[in-house]
């Protein structure tokens, strides 16, 4: 069965190993304090969709909200094998996941009738949080979160493996369905951009990416859809810990360290 997938991708803050203050005096995020990256779990969602296409045909469309800030996530999807890309013209930094889910539901409907919508489950840190659940509720579809693998798609159903506390479950979900993909696919790396020639890449750079304004997706004012506001942000003082380096080759030093560590236990 050919399967039509829509993948929701996001350009997210890269919150790994941040150095220096992030907030300015007014509690807003300092311009330039953070880089962005292709949300890694969204990359897994793309990989899951591409594997379904490889196995049984169909097409993969990538969708995002907002123009690129630093990383061109939609072009990246095209380089990796997505068939089409679509941009919703709104500023995600002024919206919450609920408003984004309504815009994205409009985009999904505009792209035809997909069998599956895939996106990343949230990372623990940062602004994105289980967008898939909100999108599924908005579309009135099934949703499965923490998906580690899509085992089969056919007969109006998808069979997926999801992570749960202390284990795994295999879930049969009714199509159309939204799948929020977790981190597990990271272990077998998402595919690299197509081995193709710089020429192809350059050609694609020129491909205009279709875009739609919120009004074309049935949303007059996206800001009116916001349900969760950021009231304020405060800097958290860095944890000051007494820390020292112990020479890995010095047996006596290691022994002294263990004596110190175990004192009082």
């Amino acid at each position: 069965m050919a399967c039509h997938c829509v993948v929701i991708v996001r350009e997210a803050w890269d919150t790994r190993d941040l150095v220096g203050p992030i907030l300015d005096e007014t509690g807003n995020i300092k311009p330039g304090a953070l880089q962005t990256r292709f949300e890694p779990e969204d990359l897994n969602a793309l990989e899951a969709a591409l594997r379904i296409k490889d196995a049984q045909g169909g097409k993969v469309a990538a969708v995002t909200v907002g123009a690129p800030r630093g990383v061109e996530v939609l072009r990246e999807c095209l380089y990796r094998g997505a068939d089409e890309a679509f941009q919703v013209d709104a500023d995600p930094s002024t919206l919450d996941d609920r408003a984004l889910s309504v815009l994205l539901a409009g985009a999904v409907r505009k792209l035809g009738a997909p069998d599956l919508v895939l996106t990343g489950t949230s990372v623990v840190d940062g602004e994105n949080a289980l967008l898939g659940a909100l999108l599924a509720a908005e579309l009135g579809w099934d949703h499965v979160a923490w998906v580690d693998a899509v085992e089969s798609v056919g007969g109006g159903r998808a069979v997926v493996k999801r992570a749960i506390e202390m284990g795994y479950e295999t879930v049969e979900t009714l199509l159309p369905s939204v799948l929020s993909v977790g981190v597990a696919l990271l272990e077998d790396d998402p595919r690299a951009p197509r081995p193709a020639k710089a020429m192809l890449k350059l050609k694609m750079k020129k491909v205009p990416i279709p875009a739609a304004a919120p009004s074309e997706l049935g949303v007059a004012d996206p800001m009116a859809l916001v349900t969760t506001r950021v009231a304020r942000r405060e800097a958290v003082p860095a944890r000051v810990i007494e820390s020292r380096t112990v020479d890995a080759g010095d047996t006596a030093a290691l022994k002294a360290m263990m004596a110190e560590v175990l004192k009082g236990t």
Partner: protein
Amino acid sequence: MAKIAVFAEIEDGVVHDISLQCLTQARALAGADGRVLAVTAGAGISEAAARLFGYGADEVHVADDKTLSGYLSRPFRTVLADWIAEQSPAVALFPATTLGLDLAASVAGARKCACALYADDVLRRAEGWLAKRIEFDRKVATYFSPAGDLALVAALRDGAAEPPAFEAGRTGAVTAIEVALDPQAMTAKVVQREVARKTVNLKGAKIIVAGGAGVGSRENFRLIRDLAAVLGAEIGATRAVVDAGWLPPDHQIGQTGATVRPEVYIACGISGAVQHRVGMMDSGKIVAINTDPNAPIFKIAHYRVVGDLKVVLPKLIEALKE
């Protein structure tokens, strides 16, 4: 008078620990004249749910129906969203478990209300209800507020509060929630379930020796076991180790595993991705052994040992045996 709802996750007849922490938080938010409503959904759970009175709930509402025997987003969100519409609590707390996070977001989507996942705290201020989340590599506290007078749905992280003490004398009558689901929404199902039996007590452990991908192989894990044995410690692991099948999932520490605060945490071959760090960073003393001097784990370690654990661990074991 504030009305605060708590979703109680019940598995094998036991209320999940983080749901109990939510009850403590709900009691504090509701105040003396407020009401705490516990709500749960599943199959054959009414008896376990009745215990929620003992944990401080003023009312216990239960959707007990065989169609809810496995967790699926659509039927659960339908039942819970209808219940929230009927009860209109000011705040609904969910445990930040894989189930609770998905259900919180699903219900917020269906009810079009405010939602904060992985909340570290929920507060009541003059300006209204706020959910606090520590984010951006634990450098920023963000306070979220509901737009207008919408209800606030928050999924509370493990450790946000202490679980309440159980009072056997506190009882009540469970209110049944009528389950009338569209049969079409009920055709999805959980076909297979593999859950590890809990064999380790990570939360109660004073000392934990944990291994990450840097351990390299199942065979090398023997070193972790040996060190744990001489220390009388429990064995922890990162998600990568569990996914590789070197240890069962009950050993996992971090975002999708346990949150622990032992007196001593020895991290071996663990790079320290934030998903792991959030589960162990409040440990008393952290020893990190890693070949990469730039591994993020060293930023939170009290003792930094830059070296190969295959060399360092035998030395530690030897020293401890003396």
